[in-house]
């Protein structure tokens, strides 16, 4: 029902293009996060959706109606959205109850109805007992929940979240990720979530739009995004990875010390002359003895260059050939190898992804 469409949206501040030709469609009830490093234009995009900033080009539509266009835009108060801010923006002059009720008051909801809805939402965010407290008396996590309650209670068409968890400590942040996801599922709201934290985006989102330099590099569900990054930026930004560049030789790709069959990289064998691939550290298995050849696996002789024990896993650097950067490999704690030991690295070719620049 609430469908949000950004068509070719761009924003230029003093000649600097902050957002550039952005296209994005949110289905009703979908949670999409905008993920990217600081300065990538994600917050500007969110503020354009909210109506605080006018786009320099393109349009934003809500349910088929244009709400933002370069000539003029619907002011934020007429969009029926709500927003959660990085600073929470809890009004210090009002109690928790008054904060939450404020939006309803503006909608001229009857007193009884207001009471009912405020109570209901405070129950959901587990803050009912703090109803008459002032924000200064609340902890960071409680303030965060007040912000959530205040934004949700008005039944917004779209809920916007601007780095909502960045001011919380690590444990609370992890808990609140699930809280936000739970609230999303409970109310089935259309949500746009801005963050620079990839695991936050992975936990909360239906789809993640990875942004870089004002553009969306890739938009996909978390699983595809990690497994099939399309660009070098996305592969590097979401999780850790190894990049390898190779040159095409007939039906194989030469990485300067070892070769992989072309068919392992692309099913139809069509590859450019220069090939860039990403291999996740989990896509490589280290073996003491040379394994039997299998489909979709290729085996390379290597040696351990460096290792670190991280408790949950081993972090190995293996060198395949003297001229190549070592590859990082993540191995289970039981898989112990010494530095300098000769080993066999078995790469799962289905986990090798071609990436462009």
């Amino acid at each position, binding site marked *: 029902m609430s469908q949000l469409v950004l068509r070719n949206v761009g924003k230029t501040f003093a000649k600097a293009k902050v957002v550039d030709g952005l296209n994005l469609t949110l289905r009703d009830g979908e949670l999409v996060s905008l993920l990217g490093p600081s300065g990538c234009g994600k917050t500007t995009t969110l503020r354009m959706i909210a109506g605080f900033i006018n786009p320099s080009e393109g349009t934003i539509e809500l349910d088929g109606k244009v709400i933002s266009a370069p000539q*003029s835009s619907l002011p934020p108060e007429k969009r029926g959205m709500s927003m959660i801010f990085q600073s929470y923006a809890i*009004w210090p002059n009002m109690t928790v109850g008054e904060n939450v009720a404020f939006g309803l008051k503006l909608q001229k909801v009857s007193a009884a109805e207001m009471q009912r809805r405020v109570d209901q939402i405070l129950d959901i965010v587990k803050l009912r007992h703090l109803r008459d407290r002032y924000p200064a008396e609340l902890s960071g996590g409680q303030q965060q929940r007040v912000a959530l309650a205040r934004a949700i209670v008005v039944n917004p068409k779209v809920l916007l979240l601007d780095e909502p968890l960045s001011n919380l400590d690590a444990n609370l942040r992890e808990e609140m990720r699930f809280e936000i996801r739970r609230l999303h599922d409970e109310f089935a709201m259309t949500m746009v979530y801005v963050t620079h934290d990839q695991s936050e985006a992975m936990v909360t989102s239906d789809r993640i739009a990875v942004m870089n330099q004002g553009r969306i590099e890739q938009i996909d569900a978390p699983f595809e995004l990690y497994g099939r990054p399309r660009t070098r930026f996305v592969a590097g930004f979401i999780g850790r990875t190894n990049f390898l560049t190779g040159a095409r030789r007939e039906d194989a790709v030469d990485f300067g010390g070892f070769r992989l069959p072309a068919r392992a990289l692309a099913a139809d064998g069509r590859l450019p002359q220069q090939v860039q691939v990403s291999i996740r550290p989990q896509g490589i298995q280290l073996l003491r003895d040379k394994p039997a050849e299998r489909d979709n696996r290729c085996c390379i002789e290597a040696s351990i260059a460096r290792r670190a024990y991280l408790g949950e896993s081993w972090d190995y650097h293996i060198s395949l050939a003297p001229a190549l950067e070592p590859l990082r490999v993540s191995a289970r704690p039981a898989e112990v190898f010494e530095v300098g030991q000769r080993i066999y690295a078995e790469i799962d070719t289905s986990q090798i992804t071609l990436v462009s620049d």
Partner: protein
Amino acid sequence: MAYVKTTLEEAALPAAGGFAQRWRHWDKTSIVWIAAIAILVLLVVNPLLRLLVVSFQDAEGAFTLANYVGAYGRSRHVEALLHSLILGVSAGTLCLLFGVPMAWALSRTDMPCKGLVWIAILGTFIIPPYLGAVGWILLAGPNAGWLNKLVVALTGMDKGPFNVYSMPGLVLVVACYSFPYVFVLTKSALDLVSSEMEDAANILGAGHLRTTFLVTLPLVLPSILGAFILVFLEAIALFGSPALIALPGRFHVVTTQLWQFFEFPPQVGLAAAYAMPLLAITILLFWLQRRITHRRGYVSLTGKGGERRPIALGPWKWAVLGWCLLVTSLSFFMPLVVICQAAFAKAWGRGWSLDNLTLRNVYAIVFENALTRTATWHTFLYAGTASLIALVLALCIAYVTNRQLVNRHVGGALGFLTMAPFVVPGIVLAIGFYAAYTRPPLVLYGTAWILILAYTTRFLPIAFVNSNAAIRSINPELEEAVRTLGGSRLVAIRHVVVPVLKRSMAGAFILVFIPATRELSTAIFLYSINTQVLSVLLFDKSDEGNFETLASIGLVLVVITVTLILAGFRLMGRDFMLRRTVA
């Protein structure tokens, strides 16, 4: 969700809106800044422009240079200019001698009785400079002054050595009431110098004394220089103390000379021409002061400062305390004592005996004398109205510029005009107002409004500095949260900005109100018989030599000020006065 539907449909945007559409989406805040500009033209631009214009006009309004010839053609007038320079430089130097050691003692050392010294400095700040001058007349007037009597009694000389009606007397009195500026600026700079800086020098072998002179003081030198300039400007712009001391001493400074041009019949053109160098010097030096204090490279002044430990002075702490007490005796304790004595004495010269005590003076000015009663009422009415106008205007301007509701150039112009009165000496501003509003189209002279508007202009910068800081302290997201929930900007201002600002605005009001209640230099040029205020009355009474009444009026003013400051403490916490009056 129904509410959203209707508003969205009604307001959905076609590609290009019609006029009604445009109006609906046009940000109404433009009205605010257009009004603000209009008011600033009335308050700032017009008076200053007229000041310049009349300086080139003769009585008929034709162009002439005769005013400048008249103003600078006489050696008397040039001499007054010279006197002002001497006064400024000497008072500035004396202020450094007074203020810098005290700032160092209170900021960096383990000197005892810091609280007492603090209170005395705050007290000095509270006493209006012209009341201090009255105190010093009682102390060091030739013959009758208490200090002279004391010396005569002790040494048997037939005449006391002190004469306040002289240039040294004037310098001392001005310095006594300006050194708090030096103190505050130096101390706040010292407070930011981390002890680690001094430790670094100590560990390399420098003693406390060398460290202080080679490391600590050079670090705060820009602030000290800036304070010197500020005091210099304050001293040359002052009217009250010079009028009380220089006139009986038969010499002139610029401000008293300007006042004389206004003796009947007022020679506005001449006064305007004569005021120009005062204005020029002030603007130039303020610019210089900004450059000095804002110079980069003194990193230690920008950081948080790390750990700070007081320097142990040993027995020297008593010497340092002695100096602090000496200075505060000159500026605060002694004048206050003699003023109180005069206020409660039947005749102040009769001395300290109990039968000389009376409440008549105070009772008379508070309850009986109609003139003082109306003047008191006017003082608070005008100061209150002016503070209110200044604050509302400053808040509007601070809001639209900080929230970038106006484009950069308009915002810059608004800020500039609002801060411009800061570099205009009160007396110059008064001449500008006189020139602008005594003749049609807008005649305000003779009404209360000319005083109110002049006060408003004069203290607009203080109001603006405070409003700006207050608005900046509000995260814009607080307002944006209102807007995403369906409230307009006005709703956000009413329900969030105003309630949040209430306290700091009450404090800012007091900061404007206090100087407005004691303002003399503008009032003396703009008041009329029906619009007397206390400061003017006090000045008039000094002619009659009725020091008992004079002291009582001063004391009433001080008591009211203290009450207000205590209210300010409650609202904003200690040291709020010393924080923002000197920007």
